[in-house]
């Protein structure tokens, strides 16, 4: 009898000890192990110089990855060397995945990172969990940033996001197709005006359909077809058709005339085969690759892709494309859905000054200038000026055109989506309806009416 108890007792103890031991191991041991390794390398340096401001601090970050971000992160060891802080990127994904994660983490108070990647379209949702940066960044720190872009990260006079790059789309088009003589004659014949990069959305639609019919296996155009990528594109088209998502009283009006026109255009283009069938599954990556593979004639794209696109090692269209300002709608407005990528500090951070220092480092003029080489639009005036003068000095006509177009777009067309915390929830409701419209399983009017109804309901629930 006794033996049984002893044996089962030890079994339970054994189990418990392993469970507990493991919990400890997961929680504390590992980060230590991680920090100790690289730190020991620079231990000698550390001892000599005790002035490092953030010695022993470990900063955790949940960030966006890919593209120019990877290059940026490769510079982080320099920051670690300078400040003594240790940076751990504990999460990496695209903005859509990051947003889903952040929302849930903040809501359940399980965020345990100091710095996050942020976006002007997203940050409004989590201002409650973000640290206002007014006290962490002096006026001096911020004076170089373009005010318009900086304002994209402000709410009630509090700054929540330091912008790293500004984003506004321009239209990329294939010069080889547009300059092709037979295309030119054929187009003039069919449509009665000269084939040239589109300046209006009507021309854009004509040309997209034209190239679909005449290019072998080419789709005239394409858009990203899901998530906020689709919502945003739709938003700028609605703007161009003279409408908006909300009126002044925050009433949903996206199902009015402009919305229906924009949706109809998307549906028409898809129906005509002028957009790839798989478009509704495309995100930024697929869109860019598709153009890079030479499958598309003209489309709206972020300037950050320019360098990649112009590299013969990565695409088939290197040197064979150019950019133009987004074609205007009947209202005279050019589509200009824009935003800024940036960084924020979480309220839960225990090392806010160190977190702010990391952001200052990541958005420093040096780093931003290096980023701009990859095609990013800098948010510091000084860097932007330098980039423009570099382009002029290069004498490269395409490059000069690229930056001129960007400069115009930035000055004239920069429009962020409504800076409300419901923007992404709105998008999550809207984009499946837009997909339905594009795929032709509902009419533009019906689809938008249904979406508007759901959005109204959501807005009301969220306290508007």
């Amino acid at each position, binding site marked *: 009898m006794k033996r049984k108890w002893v044996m089962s007792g030890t079994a339970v103890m054994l189990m418990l000890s*392993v469970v507990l031991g493991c919990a400890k191991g997961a929680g504390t041991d590992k980060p230590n192990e*991680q920090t100790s390794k690289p730190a020991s390398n620079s231990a000698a340096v550390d001892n000599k110089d005790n002035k490092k401001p953030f010695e022993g601090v470990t900063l955790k970050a949940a960030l966006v990855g890919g593209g120019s971000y990877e290059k940026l992160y490769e510079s*982080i060891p320099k920051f670690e060397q300078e400040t003594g802080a240790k940076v751990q990127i504990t999460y990496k994904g695209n903005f859509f995945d990051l947003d889903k994660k952040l929302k849930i983490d903040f809501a359940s108070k399980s965020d345990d990172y100091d710095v996050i990647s942020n976006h002007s379209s997203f940050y409004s949702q989590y201002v409650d969990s973000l640290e206002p940066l007014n006290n962490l960044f002096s006026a001096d720190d911020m004076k170089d940033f373009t005010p318009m872009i900086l304002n994209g990260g402000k709410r009630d006079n509090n700054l929540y996001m330091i912008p790293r790059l500004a984003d506004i789309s321009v239209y990329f088009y294939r010069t080889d197709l547009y300059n092709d003589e037979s295309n030119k004659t054929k187009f003039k014949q069919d449509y009665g005006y000269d084939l040239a990069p589109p300046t209006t959305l009507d021309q854009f639609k004509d040309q997209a359909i034209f190239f679909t019919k005449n290019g072998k296996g080419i789709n005239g155009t394409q858009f990203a077809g899901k998530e906020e990528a689709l919502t945003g594109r739709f938003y700028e088209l609605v703007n161009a058709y003279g409408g908006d998502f909300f009126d002044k009283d925050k009433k949903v009006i996206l199902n009015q005339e402009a919305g229906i026109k924009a949706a109809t255009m998307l549906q028409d283009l898809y129906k005509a085969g002028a957009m790839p069938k798989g478009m509704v599954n495309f995100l930024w990556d697929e869109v860019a690759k598709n153009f890079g593979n030479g499958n598309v004639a003209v489309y709206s794209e972020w300037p950050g892709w320019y360098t990649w696109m112009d590299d013969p090692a990565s695409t088939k269209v290197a040197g064979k494309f150019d950019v133009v300002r987004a074609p205007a709608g009947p209202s005279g407005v050019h589509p200009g859905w824009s935003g800024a990528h940036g960084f924020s500090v979480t309220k839960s951070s225990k090392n806010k000054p160190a977190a702010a220092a990391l952001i200052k480092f990541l958005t420093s003029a040096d780093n931003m200038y290096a980023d701009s080489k990859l095609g990013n639009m800098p948010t510091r005036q000084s860097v932007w000026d330098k980039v423009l003068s570099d382009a002029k000095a290069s004498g490269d006509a395409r490059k000069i055109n690229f930056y001129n177009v960007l400069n115009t777009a930035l000055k004239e067309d920069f429009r962020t989506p409504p800076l409300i915390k419901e923007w992404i929830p709105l998008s999550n409701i809207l984009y499946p309806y837009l997909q339905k419209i594009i795929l032709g399983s509902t009419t533009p009017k019906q689809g938008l009416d249904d979406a508007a109804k759901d959005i109204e309901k959501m807005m009301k629930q969220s306290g508007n």
Partner: protein
Amino acid sequence: MRKKNVYLSLNYVASYLLMGVFTFPAVWIILTAIRPDKEVNASPPVWIPETVTFDAFAKLFGGNTSTGSIPFHDYFLNTIWIALLSTVFSVMIGTLAGYYFSRHHSKRANAVFLSMMLARAIPGVALSLPLFLVFSKIGVLDKISGLVIAYTALNIPFATWLMQGFFKEISIELDEASFVDGCSMWGSFAKIALPLTLPGLSAAAIFTFLTVWGEFQISSLLARTVASKPFTVGLFDFTTQFTVDWRGMAAMAVVMIIPSTLFVIVAQKWLIRGLTFGASK
């Protein structure tokens, strides 16, 4: 006789064709991992890589969190710990319970047994919602321990089911003989039954290990950062803002397939026996 030969060769052709179908995705993953980047999404697809490169693996193994590369080492250790610990616990607990249910057949015992199996039938998504809230309250969200707890519970029913089948194969006479020798109930279990069911034990362990190793529904919600993310969730690190690094993903996938491949090859026989024991009776 000729007809039989035709059948046999048809059988050969069909069998090997089928094996092609079943192994192809795995082969393709390996090929993707070692081919040059520009071949990865080429259309039409490139079948045999022109040159072989192990860049993706080098990059993967050299990853660390401060430069933003994929923290492969962390994912690897997380996955191993989670899979090993939850396998050990669930098989241990499942073995005990399995022994009990193999020796008790009252109505009540059967009802308990059935409800345990029902617990296993709960879809991961359904369980992960409340677990997320509970775990965040008790502070094991995004901890290896949390995932171990969840997976242990989830795998207990299956381990119990497998083990009770194995224990049933051991005749009750042996139990009795051990009692005669003065063994207690525990002694009889530990000295007689357990050694005889080692193959079953390993089948249960392997099956649990593989299940946990590849699990995604629950870990995608409970593992939030590099502190606890296993491979299955870490794979999404390759889908970044601008690109999907299919080749890097494939390299990690290859690493993910290796242990399961080894396990399955080594322990095939036990596994099959473990899964089919009851049917032969």
